[in-house]
């Protein structure tokens, strides 16, 4: 079955500490993965996509096909990173996305 698993519903770290939000996927084809973020009282928005290999707001994510993972990392957390983070898998060219259940990240001062 094609699915995305985010094992942590809640994650709390202190400002300045490293952050890692875990995402594992199950997919028989060549995966295309995304991280979406929803800040408080804002819309769901794209944070980054694996094909771009970009760093957005200090976040990076590397696709590991051997471990079927796409973990989101940031070396030094900031308070404004507090948000809901969703990992998503594209099932096909028409961009049919399957989302994980999300991880609520809280950065403590």
């Amino acid at each position, binding site marked *: 079955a094609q699915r995305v698993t985010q094992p942590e519903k809640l994650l709390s770290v202190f400002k300045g500490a490293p952050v890692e939000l875990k995402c594992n996927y199950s997919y028989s084809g060549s995966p295309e993965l995304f991280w979406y973020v929803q800040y408080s009282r804002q819309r769901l928005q*794209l944070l980054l996509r694996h094909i771009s290999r970009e760093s957005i707001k200090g976040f990076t994510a590397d696709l590991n096909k051997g471990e079927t993972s796409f973990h989101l990392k940031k070396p030094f957390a900031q308070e404004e990173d507090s948000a809901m983070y969703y990992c998503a898998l594209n099932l096909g060219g028409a*961009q049919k996305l399957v989302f994980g259940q999300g991880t609520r990240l809280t950065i403590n001062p």
Partner: protein
Amino acid sequence: EAGVAQSPRYKIIEKRQSVAFWCNPISGHATLYWYQQILGQGPKLLIQFQNNGVVDDSQLPKDRFSAERLKGVDSTLKIQPAKLEDSAVYLCASRNRDGSSYNEQFFGPGTRLTVL
């Protein structure tokens, strides 16, 4: 550019009643999606349109849910009759198939439905 618009923002109805949601995508975006997000879960795709044609509605409960995008722009999602388990946020998203935002879906603010 103006974002995806949705209305109403909130709706409370009793079970067995009908409800409709409206979505206006970003101008020029040919692809439109409706998602259902139940509390504590990620968004789940209900239906995807390309212009005014349905691309995928495999997860739409067709016995009670319907959606249309008659002129390839605005879309409506209807539930008739509603059940308690339909309580959720209904998200609309749109995507441009061209340019640098090819892979990005732009989401609306959502409609929060409560079924009593």
